[in-house]
């Protein structure tokens, strides 16, 4: 182990004197004195094309490192999973990845990928099913070939379904180990009582998922006209196009049914769910239904959320709960902007059991303050500038550039979404912020989950002014509602 060589004291003195003497302009100590050059920045170009059989491609070359990254998206997901088969989406992702494809058995596929040092992930979200592959440039052909097998000829081997099922059932057994996981689960169940977004898998629902369910899903929804691919990295465009033609060219288009979205509604009345766990700190989450990407208020909501609890140390929740009072390490809020259905609006913190009610009350007061009074100009400016000036980071990584472009197009965002994003944030006014605060802050319908030891806060809970219910977590837990 070598160390940095210390610099002789004398030479440093000389250096300091020289610097002091040589510096004509004094060093600015106030950031306001700094003058910044303009940021030269244009939205990066992504090549977009559609193959004859309807496959959409988003391409961007980046030759710095000999690696290629590919995301393949199929436009159907787990949102329509019936309650009795909850857990299907995760099992599908797992068995799609591990169950073998084309001529390769599960073991052969795993060996093949590991020998190439390839990273392959598969997953199913509410609205899409997705593969992500990172591979060395020299292995591109094998990589594309594996993707074609996975999309067109997945095996869903039974033994891998059984393995995935046993693991998922063990996860159910362990779902009460972490207070964070318990609180998220109960909150989603409270916000989405009648849709797969709120269901939690149980031993039985996992047992009822069959291999045939997976085969059916693949046959129903996987088609070239439903496939979107984003490719970035060190590839030769012509070679790639030939490979895609070779591996996917004979895949025929066909009509694929739409998935019917469930309906969701805002909670009618608020509730506090208390889970007793012998812990020195309580996890607090407060939730309501948020919005979708089609909502014109989404820009005002971004600014509102930044000021509430999304802006880290610059948010009111962090400032009041953590920085001013030392009640918590983390205090946050977020709106998960739903791609199809409204996503959740969540605020949360973790605090010692004795300060639970003060922390919850403070959070709700901060919300009311935003609802009842316009934000001041400095705060508004900071929230907007932060989002406008950090926009360039959406384009830092080449793969996220192509993937973002593909995702925006898939979900039908407006063509000018990225180009107009900064202007739309800049246009948000204090009135807009207050208007969305009025829309989303209604203390009487908030769903609150508290996981910790209620002995120290039980008596104060009534101050919050919502009904309270205790939720028992048994050995083999089911969802609470």
């Amino acid at each position: 182990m070598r160390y940095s060589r210390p610099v002789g004291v004398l030479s440093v003195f000389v250096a300091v004197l020289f610097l002091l003497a040589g510096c004509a302009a004094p060093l600015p100590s106030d950031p306001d004195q700094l003058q910044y050059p303009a940021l030269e920045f244009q939205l990066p170009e992504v090549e977009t094309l559609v193959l004859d059989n309807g496959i959409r491609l988003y391409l961007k070359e980046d030759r710095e490192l000999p690696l290629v990254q590919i995301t393949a998206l199929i436009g159907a997901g787990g949102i329509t999973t019936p309650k009795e088969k909850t857990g299907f989406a995760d099992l599908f992702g797992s068995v799609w990845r591990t169950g073998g494809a084309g001529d390769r058995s599960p073991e052969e596929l795993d060996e093949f990928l590991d020998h190439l040092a390839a990273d392959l992930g598969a997953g199913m979200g509410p609205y899409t099913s997705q593969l992500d592959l990172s591979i060395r440039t020299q292995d591109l052909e094998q990589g594309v070939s594996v993707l074609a097998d996975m999309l067109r000829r997945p095996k869903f081997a039974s033994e891998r379904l059984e393995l995935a099922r046993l693991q998922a059932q063990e996860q159910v057994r362990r779902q009460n180990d972490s207070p964070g996981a318990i609180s998220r689960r109960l909150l989603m169940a409270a916000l989405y009582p009648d849709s797969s977004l709120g269901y939690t898998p149980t031993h039985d629902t996992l047992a009822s998922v069959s291999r045939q369910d997976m085969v059916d899903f693949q046959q129903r929804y996987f088609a070239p006209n439903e496939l979107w691919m984003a490719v970035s990295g060190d590839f030769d465009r012509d070679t790639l196009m030939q490979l895609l033609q070779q591996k996917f060219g004979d895949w025929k288009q066909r009509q694929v049914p739409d998935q019917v979205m469930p309906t969701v509604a805002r909670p009618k009345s608020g509730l506090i769910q208390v889970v007793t766990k012998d812990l020195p700190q309580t996890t607090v989450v407060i939730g309501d239904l948020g919005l979708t990407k089609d909502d014109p208020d989404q820009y005002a909501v971004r600014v509102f959320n930044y000021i509430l609890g999304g802006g880290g140390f610059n948010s009111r929740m962090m400032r009041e709960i953590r920085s001013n009072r030392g009640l918590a390490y983390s205090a946050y809020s977020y709106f998960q902007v739903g791609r199809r259905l409204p996503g959740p609006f969540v605020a949360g913190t973790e605090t010692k059991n004795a300060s639970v009610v003060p922390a919850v009350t403070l959070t709700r007061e901060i919300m009311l303050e935003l609802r009842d009074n316009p934000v001041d100009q400095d705060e508004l400016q900071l929230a907007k500038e932060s989002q406008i000036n950090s926009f360039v980071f959406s384009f830092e990584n080449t793969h996220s550039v192509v993937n973002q472009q593909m995702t925006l197009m898939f979900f039908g965002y407006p063509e000018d979404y990225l180009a107009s994003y900064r202007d739309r944030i800049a246009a948000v006014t204090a009135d807009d912020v207050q208007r969305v605060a009025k829309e989303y802050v209604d203390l009487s319908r908030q769903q609150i989950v508290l996981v910790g030891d209620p002995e120290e806060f039980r008596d104060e809970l009534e101050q919050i002014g919502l009904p309270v219910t205790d939720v028992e977590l048994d050995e083999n837990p089911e969802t609470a509602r």
Partner: protein
Amino acid sequence: MNRYITLIFSLLLVCFQGVALGSTVLEDKVFEHRFDNGLKLLVVERHDTPVVSAYITIGVGSVHETSETRGVAHLLEHMLFKGTKTLGTTDYSKEKPLLEEIERVGSQLDALRLQNGADPAELAALEKQLTDLQAEHKQYVVKDVFSNLYSENGGVGYNAFTSKDLTTYLISLPSNKLELWALIESDRMKNPVLREFYTERDVIREERRRSYDTNPARKHYESLVTNAFKVHPYRNPIIGWHSDIANLSPQKTRGFLEKYYAPVNTVIALVGDIRAADAVALVDRYFGDIAPGTPAPRVSAVEPVQKGEKRILEVFDAEPRLAIAWHKPTMPDKDDYAFDLIDQILGSGRTSRLYRSLVEEQKLATSVSVYGAPGSRYPNLFVIEGIPRHPHTVEELESAIYAELDKLKQELVEEEELTKVRNRLLTDQLRQLRSNSGLARLLTSYQSLAGDWRYVANYAVEIDKLSAEDLKQVANRYLTKSNRTVVVLQREDQTL
């Protein structure tokens, strides 16, 4: 500011492997400069997007604490978010006497709390006095000013982390705003003010509750490291125990700051849309006049050879988990390279031995992970963790792990398997180089830990030199019963 604590070593391990393969890629790209005061600057130009990631790593961590100052490296990291004599205050000359008064009353209160049979009335009076002073102090505070400035100017990922060996401050900014970074960070090094101290101490106690006391995985890891080391300061939790945190003072915190935070212990990496010559001029202008300081000394404590297995039960309201740690050397020992390969053979990917055997075939576990911990400047640990799958027990899982280790001790690894894991190391290394911040982290970490980021350039060569016989010998030398610590976390004492 806490999550990194356990991740740091596995990350460093990956980084280490990373540079080896990318060394040819990197050698041409890294520009380095040492300033007269000992400050080291590393620059990689990447002009595709107008952004820069800036990392500052101080080669100081929790290993430099004493029993009186456990937790202070991490607390100081928090306190250095609070501003300087000009930033974060409305008027420092008026604020200063109040800060001194707060410190005086706070110290008095801490001392009284330690006394047996302290007078409750006196305690209450002091507490009220402190609260009143803190309320009065608020008028001079400009809240969270660094975060505010960075954010307004488009900064992302503003954070810091403390590990056993290092402390790092990081931010990514649009490249036209880099002078703001230089202004803030040099001021942070020259003129820090430890304001809002007692509130932040409470924040850290909440951080401890959140990250360890209520989190079974982190609690388990903490228990493993604490019990595996008897003497070396690697045993101490970075965040400190509750009683440590509660008794840290502004005086101790300042002492740590003044002793270690200095250019000779500091490495800066700037990666992104900046020209190397401009970077040197900028850093020189803002940091060049700081006195060099004294190099952080090497920890003198040496962990004695472990003579006999340690078995620990950690009771927690969660399903059972198993972790086993063996003492091993650290880089640049040849055996440490061997452990990188063993790590891959046993635990990396679906075709690794432990995954295949314990998860897929015997179905004893839902997951197995293999990593090094808890730091990498001093001899450390080789760790295997597993989560048993009911109705299988931790005992069954433990036996099955030892059976796989026995194979490693008795049979030579096939050349094909060695090729596979070397391939994996080389490719994962390339992946480490993709992001500006990943590369900046790698450069500062290795510059600080090894004294030269190029230290790892020969990694691939060293890995290639190792034979199956070497791995077998290393497995036999270290993966022994008497050298291991076994920690089971579960609800109650059923197992041991």
